[in-house]
């Protein structure tokens, strides 16, 4: 039998069209606009899932996506909220925690074993009989029964979008308060974004009832919508604001889009969350919040039941009863815990013939798969059974506190625990409407208007506003239901926790609210304590004889609602940068590899095996010329009157006196005297240095420089131009010849352009900065130029040098070339503790400068003596039989004293060579060190003086 109400109900559905989907394999027809839950309810299907622990049947509770009862699986998507997700044609929906079918779930037996599963039972057992029994035996069983949905290992790909927006005022929630706030702020001239999680504007005005007459609310809704449309507000509907982060930085989720909003002023009109009551079997399908019943009727045109009992803990219960009566639901009784009519609505109910039972509470609900009856108890203990298939609970509200608490506000209660309010709201955040504790419609709208004006005042667009004292909210505390000896009175539906579980947790010694939560898991499920936090706090207060204020209320952490990881992640497929020469490398057949942030060419194999190609490239550099793409180097421009003094602080060598046109090595230390980075500084003019840095360290170095600039108060401008410049290193005995073949303004003659000189000029039509430096120990020129020119010059150089044997070479050859020269790579041959002294780089430490970062530590560590040294070694003639490699241990008396940091075969020397950290007394050339190969074999190797090749460094000065 259909539960669909007639026309006039169901604002969200299109009755003229039909959609089909399946639930548990059964076909279900629905209207466009229906949610899965409303479509099933219209068909008379009320069970949506089984509960996580006891496998109890569960159905609609909030109809607002605020509970775990409605979680279902749709194809490859786990944990979809059935009361929010709109149906789509062909959607295959399956319930959770079911073995068999929803109606005949084999897991329901657990419901009868509850007495054997006390709160925290898993701490008491499951760790025997053996030491690893938890891992091998018990944990697999528990893991298999825990977990809600099933993650698909191959879900359909999805495209998520991210955008960032800025506004003067963000209003969260487009109920009457939010609309009024947005209108007031926009009319004052603010740029306003209004985010609403529901598909339409109006909030409670679209489903709730505010009085006997409904025309008044309809008129307000109309007026607010009209004014909002006219005020030029940017509206985001179906958009959930899911958190508040520092400085009003708020993520708003809209479908597959994450909109990050920076708002100068924020209005939280986040409404209120209606709270369920606690009584025996309060989780039966058919028991729902009054707002859920109203949403079903007004949004979806679904009759929530045939015969209802309404619990009126507050005025909204009476109003819901009027709605139900209007919809043709028979009302067995309205249950009011108060002895007298406080809301003035009793006469209207009497007129309609609806019986009201005063001074009563609900003792229990009865039913199997659905609610069949409610047992009511009066103050004298008399009990009445009322047959019904619907119990509507109006048990009071808590303000929508989550975002305010993320922002640093607190949730406080009065001493009786009857009202909760948000206090300590930070600057630039304003509360409005039900979130501010208001319930009277006129007061709600007025509070919104004032919040909007206060936001505008914060922007200087309106005079400062004082919020009038809030009108007393109509919320009353639900009278506690008498405890039922048989329990099944759920505090937390997600986690299947009953009152006794909370009480027992306290009795077990977990008396602090946070400990109760952690021990019992209350509030840890998908609803994150939305319905259980306050009930739990009350139980804790009662059981530990403290006030609610003393007990406190657990914190709220982002996110407000579930958010898909895909929305948060940066899923840009390209994660590594390309240098301006990337295309040229690909065209030359390079093998590319990501290194740090960049793609780099490893080797250009051509027709050769990679190992052969690497050796060929090394030979080429030693005998003719080669070219390496070094665009990935970090590059910094340092300008200003203090540029030299500034570099003197950052780096260990002297730069203030460095002549213009000269290039100097740079070594940066941290305050421990350990090596941070190295590079070179080219002085372009008195007040301008061009500085290079290690690829992976430049961002960190830049941040450090900015900090030091501030500390020093230095008059310098620092720019990280890493990506703006391309760079290439032309190296080898024929390098000069190649350059001299190209037209340009620079004299590359040996006399005019010496080692460690730098020149600016033009080369083959490109503006260039050229430095006579290199990593290979050969005659080298490092050419930096605007990245847009890089590919052109690269091609021109290769063409000019082709007949001299010039080809590009890759990173692998570069690593060996520098190893032959004993040059270190920061981060590979150094670690976080490396000092210049232990690397034999004491020459780079200025003795004259009174200060550079790390100097006091360097001197102290020098006085204490080296703990280790970096030295060169070569393997004996039989090659690398022991299987030594980078990271192999260096042993002394059988104990590790260091390790190999760099290692490779040198075709130039015809030998395996390497660098290793060793004990200080092993480091002198001629001594022998013991290395342990990866297979465990040990080998002795002689320590060799560095560099391995061209010991007097003659070749780079050619």
């Amino acid at each position, binding site marked *: 039998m259909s539960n669909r109400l007639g026309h006039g109900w169901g604002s969200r559905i299109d009755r003229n069209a039909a959609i089909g989907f399946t639930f548990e394999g059964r076909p279900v027809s629905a209207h466009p606009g229906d949610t899965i839950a409303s479509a099933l309810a219209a068909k008379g299907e009320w069970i949506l899932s089984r509960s996580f622990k006891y496998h109890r049947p569960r159905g609609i509770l909030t109809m607002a996506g605020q509970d775990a009862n409605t979680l279902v699986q749709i194809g490859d998507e*786990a*944990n979809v909220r059935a009361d929010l997700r709109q149906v789509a044609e062909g959607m295959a929906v399956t319930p959770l925690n079911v073995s068999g079918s929803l109606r005949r779930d084999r897991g329901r037996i657990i419901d009868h074993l509850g007495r*054997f*599963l*006390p709160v925290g*039972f898993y*701490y*008491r*057992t499951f*760790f*025997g009989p053996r*030491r*690893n029994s*938890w*891992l091998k035996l018990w*944990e*697999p069983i*528990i*893991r298999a029964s*825990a*977990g*809600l*949905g099933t993650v*698909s*290992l191959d879900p359909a790909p999805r495209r*998520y979008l991210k955008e960032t927006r800025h506004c003067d005022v963000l209003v969260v929630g487009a109920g009457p308060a939010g609309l009024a706030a947005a209108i007031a702020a926009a009319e004052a001239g603010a740029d306003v974004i209004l985010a609403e999680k529901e598909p339409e504007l109006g909030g409670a005005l679209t489903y709730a009832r505010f009085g006997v007459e409904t025309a008044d609310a309809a008129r307000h809704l109309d007026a607010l919508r009209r004014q909002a449309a006219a005020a030029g507000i940017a509206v985001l509907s179906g958009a959930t604001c899911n*958190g508040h*982060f*520092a400085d009003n930085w708020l*993520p708003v989720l809209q479908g597959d889009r994450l909109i990050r909003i920076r708002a100068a002023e924020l209005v939280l009109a986040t409404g209120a969350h209606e709270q369920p009551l606690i009584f025996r079997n309060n989780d039966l399908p058919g028991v729902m919040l009054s707002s859920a019943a109203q949403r079903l009727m007004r949004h979806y045109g679904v009759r929530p039941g045939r015969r209802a009992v309404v619990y009126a803990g507050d005025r909204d219960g009476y109003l819901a009863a009027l709605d139900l009566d209007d919809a043709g639901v028979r009302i067995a009784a309205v249950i009011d815990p108060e002895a007298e009519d406080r809301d003035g609505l009793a006469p209207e109910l009497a007129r309609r013939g609806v019986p009201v039972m005063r001074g009563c509470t609900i003792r229990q609900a009865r039913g199997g798969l659905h609610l069949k009856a409610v047992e009511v108890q009066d103050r004298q203990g008399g009990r009445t059974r009322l047959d019904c298939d619907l119990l509507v609970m109006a048990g009071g509200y808590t303000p929508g506190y989550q975002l305010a608490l993320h922002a640093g506000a607190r949730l406080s209660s009065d001493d009786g625990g009857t009202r909760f309010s948000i206090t300590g709201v930070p600057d630039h955040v304003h509360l409005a409407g039900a979130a501010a504790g208001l319930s009277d419609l006129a007061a709600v709208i007025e509070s919104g208007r004032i919040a909007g004006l206060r936001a505008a005042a914060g922007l200087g667009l309106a005079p400062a506003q004082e919020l009038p004292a809030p009108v007393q909210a109509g919320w009353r505390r639900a009278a506690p239901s008498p405890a039922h000896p048989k329990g099944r009175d759920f505090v937390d539906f997600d986690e299947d926790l009953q009152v*006794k579980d909370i*009480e*027992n947790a306290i009795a*077990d*010694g977990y008396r602090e*609210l*946070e400990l109760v939560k952690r021990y019992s898991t209350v509030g840890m499920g998908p609803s*994150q304590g939305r319905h259980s936090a306050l009930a739990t706090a009350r139980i804790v207060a009662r059981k530990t004889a403290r006030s609610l204020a003393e007990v406190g209320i657990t914190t709220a*952490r*982002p*996110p407000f609602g*579930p*958010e898909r*990881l*895909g929305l948060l*992640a940066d*899923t840009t497929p*390209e994660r*590594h940068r390309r240098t301006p020469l990337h295309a040229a490398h690909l065209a030359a057949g390079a093998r590319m590899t*990501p290194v*740090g942030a960049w793609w780099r060419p490893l080797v250009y194999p051509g027709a050769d095996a990679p190992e052969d190609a690497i050796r060929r490239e090394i030979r080429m550099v030693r005998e003719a010329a080669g070219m390496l793409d070094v665009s990935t180097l970090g590059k910094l421009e340092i300008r200003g009157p203090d540029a030299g003094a500034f570099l003197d602080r950052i780096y260990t060598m002297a730069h203030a006196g460095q002549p213009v046109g000269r290039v100097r090595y740079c070594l940066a230390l941290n305050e*421990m005297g350990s090596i941070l980075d190295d590079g070179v500084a080219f002085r372009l003019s008195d007040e301008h240095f061009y500085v290079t840095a290690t690829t992976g360290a430049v961002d960190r170095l830049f941040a450090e420089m900015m900090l030091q600039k501030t500390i020093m108060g230095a008059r310098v401008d620092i720019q990280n131009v890493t990506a703006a410049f391309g760079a290439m290193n032309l190296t080898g005995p024929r390098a000069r010849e190649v350059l001299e073949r190209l037209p340009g303004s620079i004299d590359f003659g040996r006399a005019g352009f010496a080692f460690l000189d730098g020149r600016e000029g033009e080369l083959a039509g490109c503006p260039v900065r050229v430095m006579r430096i290199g990593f290979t120990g050969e005659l080298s020129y490092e050419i930096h130029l605007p990245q847009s020119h890089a590919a052109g010059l690269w091609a021109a150089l290769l063409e000019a040098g082709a007949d001299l044997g010039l080809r590009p070479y890759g990173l692998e050859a570069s690593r060996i070339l520098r190893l032959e020269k004993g040059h270190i790579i920061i981060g*590979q041959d150094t670690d*976080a503790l490396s000092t210049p002294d232990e690397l034999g780089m004491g020459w780079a430490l200025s003795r004259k400068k009174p200060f550079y970062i790390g100097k006091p*530590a360097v001197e102290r560590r020098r006085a*204490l003596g080296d*703990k280790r040294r970096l030295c060169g070694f070569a393997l004996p003639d039989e090659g690398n039989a022991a299987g030594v490699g980078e*990271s192999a241990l260096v042993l002394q008396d059988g*104990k*590790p004293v260091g390790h190999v940091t760099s290692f490779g075969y040198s075709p130039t020397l015809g030998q395996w060579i390497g660098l290793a950290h060793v004990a200080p007394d092993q480091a002198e050339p001629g001594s022998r060190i013991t290395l342990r190969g990866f297979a465990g074999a040990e080998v002795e190797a002689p320590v060799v003086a560095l560099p391995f090749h061209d010991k007097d460094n003659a070749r780079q000065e050619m």
Partner: protein
Amino acid sequence: MPIELLKYGLRRGHRPYRDIPSTPELRRSYDVVIIGGGGHGLAAAYYLSHYHGISNIAVLEKGYLAGGNTARNTTTVRSNYLTLPSIEFYREGVSLFETMSQELGFNVMFSQRGQLTLAHSDAAMRSFRLRAEMGKHAGIRAEVVDAQTVQELCPHVNMDFGGQHEVLGGLWHADGGTARHDAVAWGYAKRAAERGVEIHQRTEVTGFGIAGGRVTEIRTNRGTVLAGQVLQAAGGMNGRIAEMAGIRLPIRCFPLQAMVTQPLKPFLDILLSSSNLHTYLVQSSRGEIVIGGGTDPYQLASTRSSLPQKEALATGALQLMPFLHNVKLLRQWAGITDITPDFSPIMGASPLQNYWLDAGWGTWGFKATAVAGKRMAETIATGRVPDILMPFALERFARFELLNEMGATAAGH
């Protein structure tokens, strides 16, 4: 069904376990006062009371029991560090976890499922090889595995992500596991309390009386107490507490953030992390995916979460397992980590004679709960720092005898 639960179910009513006694009144004096009621402090109280016959102990906790970093960490237990002193120390820590449930009669759910750290770069492979070599030398299970073995150990991991972040191999640590963080603290608290140790929650240390190079009294919001010996084990508050005692610790605080998804049926057995992606994934016994990573880049003493870090963690998680894009995040949180220059803890003596330090635990404190507690208890009971703790002394910073664990602590915790 285990017999314990049968017995429980057949009993009438709930007979409370009384794991944690209510906070009593502070007495005037104690043999030992432990500042910090987290895992470390409680473990020390347990070992003092059960192995050294010292039970006249007060554990002072500013908030609720084990509510600081014990409650916030992502529960990795492992020993695959880089330096020998660390490996030897954490190896003992892992072995204590292996028997902890039996020792405490409380299920701490230690699940030694193995930890796999992925390498996406040569540099990571080099660093893993060194850790594996050092680990083998020290007798722990740590080995470098190739890409194929990675796939066998974790069939769902994304191996190439469209040619980027290709998985080159990994560091497999079969000794690695996780445990239920709260249960570890509660188990120690329960057994310590049984011997008469007093646990004072909501008791904040506000200052010290110091004379003749000794702490003479400890001032709290609930009154002043005298103590023979004092142990400071205050997690993220260590720098501040030490300062009150006139001791400067080389500690900087960085927030460390983590998050969990909604519970899902099991699909990830091992502890998975990536040093290049700064991401860590483990599926808890409840089915939630716990996602963690490195600390925030800036110093801050705050437990507020941030959006950029959440986005970064999600990015790393989806690079490791792109199929998680539909999975929903449930909660995020942050802790304050106290980081030392060498990414190693500070344990042992302080400049004050009767004041002992257990600090600088950064992102690596949980796994050391048992061993730090045990060895600090030994230190306090005997007045002598055992050899295994000597390398972690505060004076090492003055001597620059540092333990470089930076590379071995980043994302794997």
